[in-house]
């Protein structure tokens, strides 16, 4: 028995000319529930792992708004029925695997029966000079628990403090002056994303190092991995990494081209590709890997049969 993946959906459009983080996550969540044949009210826990939003809202958790939008147990349920608990988890591109770890735990202890993880990122209102290193995308996945043998068995996370400043983002206040500024306004908070040269190369270094340590801890080697689900999904990260690890190309869950530049959604997009192709169901051992700011590397092992 284990916490298994019921469905995964990723998309790049929400039906509006300018996508919003909330609407992308809403659309992905609805698509994912439909694929799994589930109702919104079945969800016991909803974690949003997206990072970049058009409005940079500080509270409430975006997850609460998404819960309301999709109609998951909005108020007091009938006696004996469950509600939904929602919150945001922030760990960059590694956030989805961190959220899977949290929900797998609550599934294992019986606190929840169905967990949802949603993601989305859009242009966050950058300073004039910058461009976001990703394209808008939203994703959702469902984790359930039943008698099937499939499930997440092991997790691993490492950070590399020597590289903590290679990728940094945050809001910075900028004064505004001139006739176009409304009365009472004095400035705005704009997003600064600073990716230093060499960041992508160090990501691959750290991902390789952490993967080897994780597999060694489990008494496995890379030949035991039937499918690699990597994030970020861009080829200039995935291809050098898989070559260094010695993973053949046909054992990698590549995403569709329009989702290659997804950010926190990258893991969900790769999972969606693996589910659609049937390779997730065929693989005895699937390694999910995410690498991002910190540098942080998170890993999860998903097995179709118990070890």
């Amino acid at each position, binding site marked *: 028995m284990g916490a298994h993946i019921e469905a995964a959906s990723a998309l790049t459009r929400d039906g509006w000319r300018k996508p919003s983080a909330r609407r992308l996550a809403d659309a992905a969540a609805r698509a994912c529930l439909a694929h799994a044949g589930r109702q919104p009210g079945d969800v016991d826990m909803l974690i949003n792992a997206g990072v970049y939003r058009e409005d940079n809202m500080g509270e*409430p958790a975006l997850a*609460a*708004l998404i819960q309301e939008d999709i109609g998951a147990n*909005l108020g007091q349920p009938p006696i004996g029925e469950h509600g939904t608990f929602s*919150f945001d988890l922030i760990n960059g591109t590694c956030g989805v695997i961190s959220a899977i770890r949290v929900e797998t*735990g609550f599934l294992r202890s019986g606190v929840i029966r169905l967990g949802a993880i949603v993601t989305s990122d859009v242009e966050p209102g950058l300073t004039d000079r910058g461009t976001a290193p990703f394209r808008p995308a939203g994703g959702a996945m469902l984790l359930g628990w039943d008698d099937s043998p499939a499930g997440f068995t092991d997790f691993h996370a490492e950070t590399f403090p020597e590289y903590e400043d290679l990728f*940094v983002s945050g809001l910075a206040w900028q004064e505004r002056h001139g006739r176009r500024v409304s009365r009472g306004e004095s400035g705005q908070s704009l997003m600064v994303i600073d990716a230093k040269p060499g960041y992508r190369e160090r990501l691959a270094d750290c991902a390789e190092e952490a993967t080897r340590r994780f597999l060694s801890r489990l008494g496995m080697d890379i030949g035991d991995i039937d499918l690699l689900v990597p994030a970020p999904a861009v080829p200039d990260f995935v291809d050098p990494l898989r070559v260094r690890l010695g993973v053949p190309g046909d054992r990698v869950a590549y995403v569709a081209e329009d989702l290659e530049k997804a950010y926190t959604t990258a893991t969900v997009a790769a999972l969606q590709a693996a589910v659609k192709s049937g390779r997730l169901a065929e693989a005895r051992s699937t390694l999910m890997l995410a690498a991002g700011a910190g540098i942080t590397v998170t890993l999860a092992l998903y097995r179709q049969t118990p070890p």
Partner: protein
Amino acid sequence: MSEIRGKQPGHWLALESPSSGGSSGCRIESVGVKLPSGRLTTRDLMGRTSHRTRIQLERLTGIHERHVVGPGESSFTLAAGAARDCLAHSQRQASDIEMLINTSITRSKGRSSQSFEPPLSLYVKHAIGASAAVNFDLSNACAGMLTGVFILQDAISRGEISCGMVVSGEYISHLSWNAAKQIRSVFSKQLASLTLGDAGAAVIVERAPEGAAGIDVIGFTTLAEHSRLCLAFPSTVGPGAQMYTKSRTLQKVAIEDMAPLVAEVIGEAGVDLTEIDYLIPHQTSARAIRQGTQAFAERLGAKPKHVVVNLEEYGNTSSTTLFVALHKYLEEQRIRKGDRVMLLALASGIEIGMAIFTIDSQVDHYGRTH
């Protein structure tokens, strides 16, 4: 990972307790706080509003003053300071911490008014030397710290880890300054922003020694039909953010739904409300706390022995309020060994979370004996 499956959910709350198969043998080991040295009285704040408001804020809220950050201080310095204070009150070393979760709404660090990546938890763990800890941030408005405790106790109960830390550093007083530029009357949706104060807090959760008292029950739910009653965004009138709250509606809704949720939690813990020695609710205003606790006490036909209100000195310190209050009462030795404490988080979302636990040897590390 060990496999501990309890009974299937039959609760409104996502909830964990010994009777539901989890939470046994898990305790709050220590609490730490970092308060900035600056203080701002309500009189001074209201004397600096751009418009003449006639708002009697101190009488309405019970807040006389709050701590505010000075130069060089930020969410990060408050969180790291609280984490160090927590370790100073603990039997644990930084190297024992296997999971570290930062839960502050505000995440200022250096020149950034709100840091996004890397997560603030990464900087805190490096600052205190908890290099082996798995880290991530979570955001759940003022319920953030208790949400983090919920996650840690689940991981500890299942044996995934044996010790973790939740931290939060709230430099949130910029909302007060931004509100002060615009607020005109007591009916303003920015009124609640004037109640905020800065503070850092941290808590270590660990596997309890055999026979030691610990967390009896912990649970959460989100009343998402009211998710838009309190919203905060980056400001355009000054650095930081602005918050818009429909305070009366939020209070009304919370009162309406609180009684059955409290009943569920105390029922799960197998206690009566009269057996709660100290109820520590989220600190918003003294009047709201009085009305809220009175309403659910009337519906449940019982009330806790003491309701903690520390607004006079700190104001609403956002996600840290519960643990700033717990720390104060431990330091003052008002909470003693064997006392049963109930934490009640109420936050934008609407998030409602509760935990009941019994104080054990933690008290030995606070107050006169420390």
